[in-house]
């Protein structure tokens, strides 16, 4: 239970930080912001890897974890790559 309180503390601080940092992103970049945050929400891959790496006697959990790894990887790889591709298109031309 003590751990839970500690984690909640982190959560609250992170929410404030998030609002502070992200409200400064201009509307010009809102689509890459979304695809970039798609990639970051793939951070759940950490939990998926731990589950998929479980040893003997945990076959079912490991299998479910493996599927989770696949979904999270799509997010991480797809999210970062498409964001990179998009941001490469934002150019300022010299006139």
């Amino acid at each position, binding site marked *: 239970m003590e751990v839970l309180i500690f984690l909640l503390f982190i959560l609250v601080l992170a929410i404030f930080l998030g609002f502070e940092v992200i409200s400064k992103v201009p509307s010009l970049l809102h689509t890459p912001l979304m695809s970039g945050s798609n990639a970051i929400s793939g951070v*759940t891959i950490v939990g998926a890897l731990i589950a998929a790496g479980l040893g003997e006697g945990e076959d079912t959990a490991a299998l479910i974890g493996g599927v989770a790894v696949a979904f999270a990887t799509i997010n991480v*790889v797809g999210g970062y790559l498409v964001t990179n591709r998009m941001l490469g298109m934002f150019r300022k031309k010299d006139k």
Partner: protein
Amino acid sequence: MEDVRTLLNLVYILSAVTFILGFKLMGRPTTARQGNILSAVGMAAAVVATLMFPEVVRYTYIAAGLAIGAVIGALFAFRTPMTGMPQMVGLLNGFGGAASLLVAWAEFVAHPEQPIYQGIIIWLTVLIGTVTLSGSLVAWAKLEERFIPTKPVLYPGQRTVSILLLAAILGGGIWFALDMNAPTAAQVLGAVTALAFVLGILLVIPIGGADMPVVISLLNSYSGMAACASGFIIQNNLLIVAGALVGASGIILTLIMCKAMNRSVANVVLGGFGADLPGKAQAVVGEIKPVKPDEAYLILEAANSVVIVPGYGLAVSQAQHAVRELMEAMEKNGTEVRFAIHPVAGRMPGHMNVLLAEANISYDALVEMDAINPTMDTVDVCMIIGANDVVNPAALEDKNSPLWGMPIIEAHRARTVIVMKRSMGKGFAGVENPLFFRNNTRMLFGDAKASLQALINEFKGSGN
């Protein structure tokens, strides 16, 4: 052993720092790309660190999952056209939810003997993750215009059904959390998952196509919350911090979108916009004045400054490259050309900016609504391509209009307005647009791309 663990947790802290700095660098177009790369490096470090944890002993599923995910992700990233970005982001939101919900399931299957609060967290993760998944699938289908109608799907007793579903999910959660070790616990969690799936569908299906920017933003936020909740299950700070950042980002975008439509989040989410229009909207006076491309050309040719207002119609007819060509032709003719971007133009936040950037239009020329409006009186020609409600002056002038109070791009204040439009149909809101009937408005009917091409040909033909 403990030393390794400490070291790996330090890597997680570094990853969290890269995510935060990544978002910070995203604040400017010149640094955004570095921010994204930095964040990706942090994610790669977190993955490598996790693989080094002593309890990770089986690598077959991990290798398979990583390989399959990477291939599918890369295919998505390289093959999705910019017009398809809303669908892709929608789908990725759903996959994020799916991953979190599966992590919760795996944790339950592996360690059913846990205190009640862990049961509640597992249940919550499953709930948020599943709603994100099914809601995103519906949003994706609506954006693809496949399987599900884009128009709001309304049925009697909608709210009652949703509330009953939520109550059943809540009851299931209590039953599940009280004894995760009971033989029936898996069935109960299974039922919760199924009900949450239905709930996600029911929440998104009544929402119409033009409200998609709000829905996508909200689901984006949910996918972050799901990751955050799964962080509580495995007691991992990185997941909590990263999930909270994404959750906050989605909420910010949701609020911006709602403000730009002058509606509350509840109003959008509960759906049914336009179902009960107020009694008497002002009658529209004036007459439609259609023009041919050669007449429109003469107006544009004489203009010193032109503002283009793009809308979803531009994306539909894939006219972004034609717009660039016309822009170049006009600039060669000595005309200053800018684009006015309404926050909810298109199907997701920033949709128009991405499309125009793809067509190689400098982001200097993309101006936000609040910056363009004060200059509108000095604009010679405002050209509207496939937009409707976001330039409807009734939002400012007619208290009985359903659009009343919505911030608009004040195109009607320009000396001349040229509206490119397929036909005289109404906008999504089903509201008549008095702009089309004004004295200074000319209508150029036809497909946006074809009309633009005709204008480009006029410019070329004139020998500039």
